[in-house]
């Protein structure tokens, strides 16, 4: 009897855990189905090609023009700019923390970076709006400081904590023997870092960069506040742009449910989903290669 009770308990716990495990996958699938169902309807009125590569986004004109190329380019431009700023600084910072910094400085820097990750994006956006935007405006003599560049700089700050902490982790987990082996051959500290530690940690570092970029491309609040939100194809990084995420966030509140515009916003969601899925899978591939 006693034994039976135990078995029943065991059974219940096991199934409960199973359900919890399945729930996460279940929700992802549900979200995807919902996105797909709503989003694909837009292709009844616009061809997928025209949707992805159409040059104008005038969703409330008559008839609506639903080309998201300016939005895709806006997202890519801001992301690229953020990556160019945050990747070198982030990796250098990780190398400094993992290899060069004395113990005390290391701890201070690490908690500083964790703190940076803890700042809500709306606060960063707000600070960017009152400090960075006027600065960009006056330095480049622009009519407005709400540009892709401002967005890139702001987002670089948001990508950095991810890049630094994962890259630092990758560097730290390089076997200590490698370092000693290189030093014992007469390599300088920098040669050891550059030729042994960085290559040995490279897959982890690539994963760090991908996850950082993933964070940037999905970011909404800060970019909406400081990139200017004009849906035109940008010629330079000093022009206002509008990203995929900001478009959804800004327009979803006012759209007529069931209209083409409404479905188009869902289709943008699909595009975003595909992009961040691809980035995450790439990051995962590199992380697993490491093991």
């Amino acid at each position, binding site marked *: 009897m006693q034994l039976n009770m135990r078995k029943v308990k065991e059974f219940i716990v096991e199934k409960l855990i199973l359900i919890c495990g399945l729930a996460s996958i279940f929700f992802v699938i549900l979200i995807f189905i919902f996105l797909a169902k709503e989003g694909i309807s837009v292709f009844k009125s616009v061809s997928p090609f025209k949707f992805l590569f159409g040059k104008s986004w005038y969703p409330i004109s008559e008839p609506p023009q639903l080309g998201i190329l300016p939005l895709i380019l806006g997202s890519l431009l801001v992301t690229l700019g953020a990556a160019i700023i945050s990747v070198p600084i982030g990796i250098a910072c990780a190398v400094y923390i993992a290899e060069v910094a004395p*113990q005390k400085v290391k701890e201070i820097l690490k908690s500083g970076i964790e703190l940076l990750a803890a700042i809500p994006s709306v606060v960063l956006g707000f600070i960017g709006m009152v400090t960075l935007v006027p600065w960009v405006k006056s330095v480049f003599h622009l009519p407005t400081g709400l540009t892709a560049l401002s967005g890139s700089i702001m987002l670089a700050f948001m990508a950095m904590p991810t890049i630094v902490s994962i890259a630092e982790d990758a560097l730290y987990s390089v076997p200590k*023997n*490698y*370092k*000693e*082996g*290189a*030093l*014992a*051959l*007469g*390599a*300088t500290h920098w*040669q050891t870092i550059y*030729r*042994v530690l960085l*290559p*040995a940690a490279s897959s982890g570092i690539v994963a760090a960069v991908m996850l950082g970029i993933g964070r940037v491309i999905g970011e909404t609040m800060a970019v909406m506040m400081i990139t200017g939100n004009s849906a035109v194809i940008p010629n330079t990084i000093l022009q206002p742009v509008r990203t995929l995420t900001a478009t959804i966030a800004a327009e979803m509140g006012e759209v007529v449910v069931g209209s083409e515009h409404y479905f188009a916003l869902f289709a943008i969601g699909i595009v975003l989903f595909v992009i961040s899925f691809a980035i995450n899978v790439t990051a995962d591939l590199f992380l697993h290669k490491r093991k």
Partner: protein
Amino acid sequence: MSKFRIVNLNVWFGGVHSLREVNLEVQANEILSVIGPSNSGKTTFIRMLNRLNELQLNFRMAGDLNLDSVSINKIDVEELRRRVGMVFALPLPLPLSIFDNVAYGPRMQGVINKNKLKEIVESCLKQAYLWDEVKDRLDISAFKLSGGQQQRLCIARTLAVEPEVILFDEPCSGLDPISTAKVEEAMLKLKQRYTIVLVTNNVKQAARVGDRTAFFLNGELIEVDQTDKIFTAPGDQRTDDYISGKFG
């Protein structure tokens, strides 16, 4: 001629006194075997000779350590480590091809001429008794080699930097007897051109290859003498107990 002259060497890691008042000379072109149980300070001792201990936290030392009559603290540390090469307990190939592993050191010193590099790689692999086994597949990853081959590759890599002294830190601890024999053969051959300090847990290995043998216990150098003498008529009872297997 003495290569290393060590006078009153003391080493601490934090509060732990790891080496006490060690006085020792290493002669040029000899193999000095260093034996002793674990925690006896023998690894700390050879890692002093290329200043690798400095990487540890809370390291402190006192005493003199001279290489060719110059204090090693006065020699540029990278220069010292080029002159005093080291082979580690675990074979430690870099994640590169066989060729690139051996060429790593010379390249770091700025040798870029392809033919010159090929020459260096061939001669070093020959000296490490590995050439015949790998000459047709120099471009495969070093990880594809067996443990014994990897260890000889590491010896070749150390040789490529043209050191004067080679430190072996338990080089055969992970190897089978046949691979061990090959590494020992390489060491005996290398003695003609290099000075060798060999730390080993294998007392018989010390007897086979060492010209002189030093016995460490609890951070102290108990005695150092010709290998024959240590193994037949040691001056200290503790040495006798250790080599006859009463403890350790």
